[in-house]
């Protein structure tokens, strides 16, 4: 049942480019994602407000205004199609009836926009992973598990094109590892807990999707690698640490595709290029036009391999011109126009390389997204099918790539970076190749009150 990825999906670096991939996916409205065109992926959320039975009507009106506004602007700017991501707020997953209602509002407005403007659109529904509301998290049963699955199932039934999630298995351990810049513990969280939970979770989600004429799309290591990026941007942890975490999150993300996801990968999963190299499936990405959701050192390079181009999230607030989601829609469309114009002229590789060159030398986190680096590391990852070992290898190879790049002076670095890379190198070498053996070692180092081993099939 489980797909094996034991070779790269690409043999030529020049084929590895935004907008197209070996295995595109076609939406209900006929958008072919990965078929040559980069589509905008628009995201949005509520302004500051409470959600309850009294306010839900207002919330629905806001969502209705947002979707009508962004689709109208997309039509006015002749977007070839729009992927809408509905990433719920936690209350919508806790009370699935709210999430279901809003999802229906969005679906309905998309249908109307199709009739009114001839605009193609598709929707990715992304419930929240609420399982960590229990502390320590209950991952495999309980009310949060039940309501989450209920929301997935009904939205799939109601016509969502894609389902995604930013799952959190292992985050309870990873959070602490991040602020300590502790790579051993981070690898345990990603490569043992994360990987195991992804297998369990996505087996269920793929089942729900398949039963309801919906695509399982993919997951994001948002709570792991993007948190690392944000902490690094604030100067809290070393940029090299965040860069290593990014690549170490790849095997975790890959599990969703082993279980049957078909893409597009989640927008905020910057590990996406690795997934695309290995699976040949389309990916969502986000960069400079998602700056309203988070700042980043990868504003352009993130687009180099994108099949959908996203703004990540924006509240419904008024800017001088228009509501912020409409502004985001416009910016995404112009970014996509530019990429697609290059493709039309056969200049996509050249344009990809401009996106890459404009960022890659300025930050180690951008450097690890270089298509050649991605291909080189991915080629090693497919040599094993053990996702824990893959995680360790991913971290190790990234440390090596960065050391080499810094030594050669081809990427900007902080004077403290080499010390941290050495420290990580040593720590990674101390990790055994066997997950079980590693867990035994870690038992004494871990705060065992923070997670429940049996929720990860561990003893």
């Amino acid at each position, binding site marked *: 049942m489980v797909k094996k990825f034991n070779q790269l999906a690409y043999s030529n670096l020049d084929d590895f480019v935004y907008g197209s991939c070996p295995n595109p996916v076609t939406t209900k409205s006929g958008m072919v994602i990965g078929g040559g065109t980069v589509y905008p992926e628009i995201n949005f*959320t*509520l*302004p*500051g*407000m*409470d*959600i309850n039975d009294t306010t839900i009507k207002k919330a629905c009106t806001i969502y209705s205004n947002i979707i009508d506004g962004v689709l109208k602007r997309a039509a006015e700017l002749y977007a070839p199609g729009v992927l809408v991501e509905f990433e719920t*707020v*936690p*209350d919508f997953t806790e009370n699935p009836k709210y999430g279901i209602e809003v999802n229906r509002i969005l679906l309905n407005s998309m249908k109307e926009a199709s009739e009114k403007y001839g605009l193609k659109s598709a929707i990715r529904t992304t419930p929240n992973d609420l399982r*960590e*509301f229990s*502390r320590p998290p209950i991952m495999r049963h309980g009310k949060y598990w039940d309501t989450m699955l209920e929301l997935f199932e009904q939205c799939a039934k109601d016509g969502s094109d894609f389902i995604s999630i930013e799952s959190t298995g292992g985050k309870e351990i990873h*959070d*602490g590892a*991040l*602020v*300590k*810049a*502790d790579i051993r513990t981070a690898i345990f969280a990603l490569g043992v807990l994360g990987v195991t939970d992804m297998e369990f979770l996505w087996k269920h989600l793929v089942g729900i999707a398949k039963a309801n004429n919906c695509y399982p799309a993919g997951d994001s290591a948002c709570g792991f690698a993007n*948190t690392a990026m944000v*902490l690094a941007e*604030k*100067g*809290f*942890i*070393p940029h090299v640490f965040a860069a290593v975490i990014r690549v170490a999150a790849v095997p975790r993300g890959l599990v969703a595709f082993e279980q049957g996801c078909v893409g597009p990968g989640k927008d905020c999963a910057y590990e996406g290029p690795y997934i695309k190299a290995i699976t040949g499936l389309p990916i969502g990405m986000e960069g400079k036009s998602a700056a309203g959701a988070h700042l980043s050192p990868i504003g352009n390079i993130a687009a180099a391999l994108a099949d959908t181009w996203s703004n990540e999230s924006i*509240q419904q607030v008024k800017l001088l011109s228009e509501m912020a989601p409409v502004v985001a829609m416009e910016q995404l469309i112009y970014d996509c126009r530019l990429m697609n114009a290059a493709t039309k002229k056969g200049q996509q590789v050249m344009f990809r390389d401009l996106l890459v060159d404009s960022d890659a030398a300025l930050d180690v986190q951008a450097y690890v997204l270089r298509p050649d680096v991605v291909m080189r590391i991915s080629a090693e990852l497919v040599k094993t099918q053990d996702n824990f070992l893959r995680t360790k290898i991913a971290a190790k190879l990234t440390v090596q790539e960065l050391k080499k790049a810094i030594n050669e002076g081809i990427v900007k670095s902080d004077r*403290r970076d080499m010390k941290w890379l050495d420290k990580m190198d040593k720590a990674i070498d101390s990790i055994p190749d066997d997950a079980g053996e590693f867990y035994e070692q870690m038992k004494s180092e871990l705060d065992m009150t923070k997670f429940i081993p049996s929720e990860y099939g561990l003893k």
Partner: protein
Amino acid sequence: MATLNDVSQCVLDGELDEVKALVQQLIDAGIDPITIINDGLIAGMNIVAPLFKSGEMFVPEVMESADTMNEGMKLLKPLITDGDIPSKGKIIIGTVNGDLHDIGKNLLIMMMESRGYTVVDLGVDIKEEAFVAAVKEHKPDIVGMSSLLTTTMMKMDSTIKQLTKEGLRDQIKIIIGGAPITQEFAEDIGADGYSEDASTAVELCDRMMTA
């Protein structure tokens, strides 16, 4: 022989393995434990704070410094009576109801503790009633609330209202923080202060405690 300066430097460098020996030397030399704490351990942390703020130290390094300080404290605590270590103040901190984000909160706790505050961590997803109960139980000087979601930030408002209703508002200062929070929002809901990140939050608390 070890000096108080060596202890400070040891804290700054986060040399967990060496601090004990240094502190022990000073104790053996008859230096007043309170002096070792104030002019050695805490003096070290007082160098750490501005270095962190200016971006010259990372959080893990700050944590190592804090751990180092705590390691030294372990030797000194038995030698003094409880009231001798002056707490700069007591703060209770929690992430509001419906919100699970705790990295920022935990950073703040670590910074506050190493600065000499007594901190009560309520955890995440904390209901209005739980804040009220904690204020009644711990009688803190400051209450800190964190929220990272636009849909939970209004919980700060309802918590403040609840504290007011229970007659507790005047006994405490309230600080808030988190991605969607602004100075203006803080003023709107009647919080006493807002801070963008952990290090400015510590400064904010310092100002509040001396005001």
